[in-house]
């Protein structure tokens, strides 16, 4: 037994070493930097400054922390919900074979293969207030009389970046949920149908409980990715106008690229990591309790 344990330890060692080197070490480094005065402007004067970076980002009058947190909540919440719902609908539609399904699913999955910055640029042009296709269509349909400044009007800017992000994330849920749906045994659904369950009942009592593990893990993963995904916003509005689309991860990039302040940038990184950690713990606890209740 002792020998077996040692064998097991040796077996996981390479994987652990890999993780330690490429994941844990950089994270530790990042956390350490968040407590240091660390700006590229003056690399010879790096020193520990306690919680000053955190104080600075929370009390920043130029980029109000509360507003950034609020924007982040909207960005993550709305993106996730809409991506999930639309992705689920698409997966349900594609579950049964139909003519041209292969081409159709390839088209649906296409956005997922694109880079975030490219998507940001494409949507920035679509939403452009002067030459944008969206304004053009609305004008031609007679729905508006003057073009809307989608990306320059704070009321529209967040909606516009959300539309781009939802468009981007739907395929992920469609792919993952479609795979899960295909694993639901046909006889189970058949049996339910014979027992008189309608389609709504089948969906909520058979299909969703059956694929719940996939739903839990995909929504959790997406929450993390959306929160850590500044690309689209950066490409479309750079967090503007006047902070109206500035979220934690775009402000982190601002601190790094504009302010050269790696200390405050890392502080934002630590805030993001802590929020995600708290969310993941809470979410997993919540979903696993329900699972044992159901059992």
């Amino acid at each position, binding site marked *: 037994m002792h020998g077996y344990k040692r064998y097991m330890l040796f077996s996981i060692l390479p994987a652990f070493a890999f993780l330690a080197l490429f994941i844990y070490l950089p994270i530790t480094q990042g956390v350490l930097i968040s407590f240091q005065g660390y*700006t*590229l*402007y*003056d*690399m*010879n004067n790096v020193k520990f400054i306690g919680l000053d970076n955190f104080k600075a980002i929370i009390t920043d*009058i*130029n*980029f109000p922390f509360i507003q950034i947190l609020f924007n982040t909540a909207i960005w993550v919440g709305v993106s996730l919900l809409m991506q999930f719902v639309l992705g689920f609908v698409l997966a349900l539609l594609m579950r049964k074979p139909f003519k041209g399904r292969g081409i159709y699913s390839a088209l649906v999955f296409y956005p997922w293969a694109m880079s975030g*910055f490219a998507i940001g640029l494409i949507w920035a042009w679509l939403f*452009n*207030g*002067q*030459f944008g296709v969206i304004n053009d269509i609305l004008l031609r349909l007679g729905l508006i009389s*003057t*073009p809307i*400044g989608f*990306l*320059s*009007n*704070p009321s529209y*800017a967040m909606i516009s970046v959300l539309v781009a992000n939802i468009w981007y994330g739907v395929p992920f849920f469609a792919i993952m949920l479609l795979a899960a749906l295909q694993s639901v045994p046909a006889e189970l659904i058949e049996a339910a149908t014979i027992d008189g369950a309608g389609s709504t009942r089948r969906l909520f009592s058979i299909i969703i409980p059956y694929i719940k593990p996939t739903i839990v893990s995909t929504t959790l993963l997406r929450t993390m990715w959306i929160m850590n995904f500044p690309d689209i916003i950066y490409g479309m*509005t*750079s967090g*503007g*106008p*006047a*902070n109206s689309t500035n979220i934690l991860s775009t402000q982190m990039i*601002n*601190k*790094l*690229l*504009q*302010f*050269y*302040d790696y200390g405050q940038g890392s502080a934002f990184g630590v805030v993001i990591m802590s929020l995600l950690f708290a969310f993941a713990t809470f979410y997993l606890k919540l979903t696993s309790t329900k699972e044992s209740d159901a059992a």
Partner: protein
Amino acid sequence: MRKALVVLVAMLVLVSTAFTASAATTLEFLEVMTSPERTALLKSMIAEYEALNPDIKINLISPPYEQSEQKATLMLNTNQTLDIIEVRDLSAKQFVNNGKLTDLTEYLEAWTDAEPMTAVANAAARTVDNTPYLIPANIYIKALFVRRDVLREHGIHEIPTTLEELVETAIKITDPSKNQYGFTWRGKSSEIKFSDLFAAPYVEELKDAEFVYTDGEHHFRESGFKEGMELYIKLFKEAVPNDGINWGFNEQINAFVSGTTPFLIQDPDSIPLLDKMLGPDKYEVHPIPVGPYGFNYIDYGFAGLGIPSYSKHKEEAWEFIKWMSTSDKNGYYNQHYGPLPVHTATFENNEHFQGKHYVAYNYEMNHPEIFVPIPYDLSSEKWPGWAKIHETDMQSVLLGRMSLEQALGKWAKYWD
């Protein structure tokens, strides 16, 4: 026996390649202002240099533009092998602060056949601590691009020479119902370089200032500065589509090319782009309009070449930089890339830079009493991030979420 022969041959090949490799010195060269066209241009120039100097090989490193500045910082701060580095105005101070650039004073003193550079280029070389840490290669200054065809349609034949005239003309031709506006706004990414151009020349003392503003010396409380800002805001409200708040370089070029906004303030690297998109005869370039005191400031941007302090091939790197910094090569480089060359001779001898689109730039550089060269204080520790703060505040002012007085007060406090 056969195996032994194979091993022997393999060893011989290895040894011979090792010898040939050691005969040539390889220089690592990192470019920062990367674009596919420019990389191709640099590679062709490097090939020419290598053909002239068979014992030198130059390996050009071209990270994508968005990451290049970070890559440069990272390579320098971790002392990765690098012999020539492109240094731009924004990063020079940071590299010097961290002790990563070689002071080129001695090299310059020994360079007896150096050709005279323009005043702006000389100042650029000594931007940090009045010490030459780089040899400038490309100069960027702003001028007024004009669509005369659009103006003519509106019965306007005079090109504005003052800021006030510019604003008046722009407002005059604006007619939102026909999607006709007057001025190509810049709302993000360095919008500060446009708004300051309207406000700062309303302060007469600016003419003698060392910097547009610096720590403890600024003009945000001057009534003149406020007057200039009010004019600029008026321009936005009456001659710019609302969408302008979110316009960066690409949106600007598009609006100008489409004729929606026939006035554009831009650097000379827009010229090759506009030539391609619009045709060289469809637009004109004029000097920047001046303020009420008959002057405006010229804030010059630049990029040049430097040698990392830890390079093991400084002499070879310097030889290459010297070659790139002859008026012949520098002229060729800028002619195909867009910005202004650094030598006075190029403006006199190179036909391209005598062309109609460059006359205004040449005029600006040769009339420092009207176009006073005043840089931003990029060395100030308050500079990094300032442009982003300004952008956010300016957007708030244009959206009516902050008053101009509030913004000016905030900026004054920041620079006090």
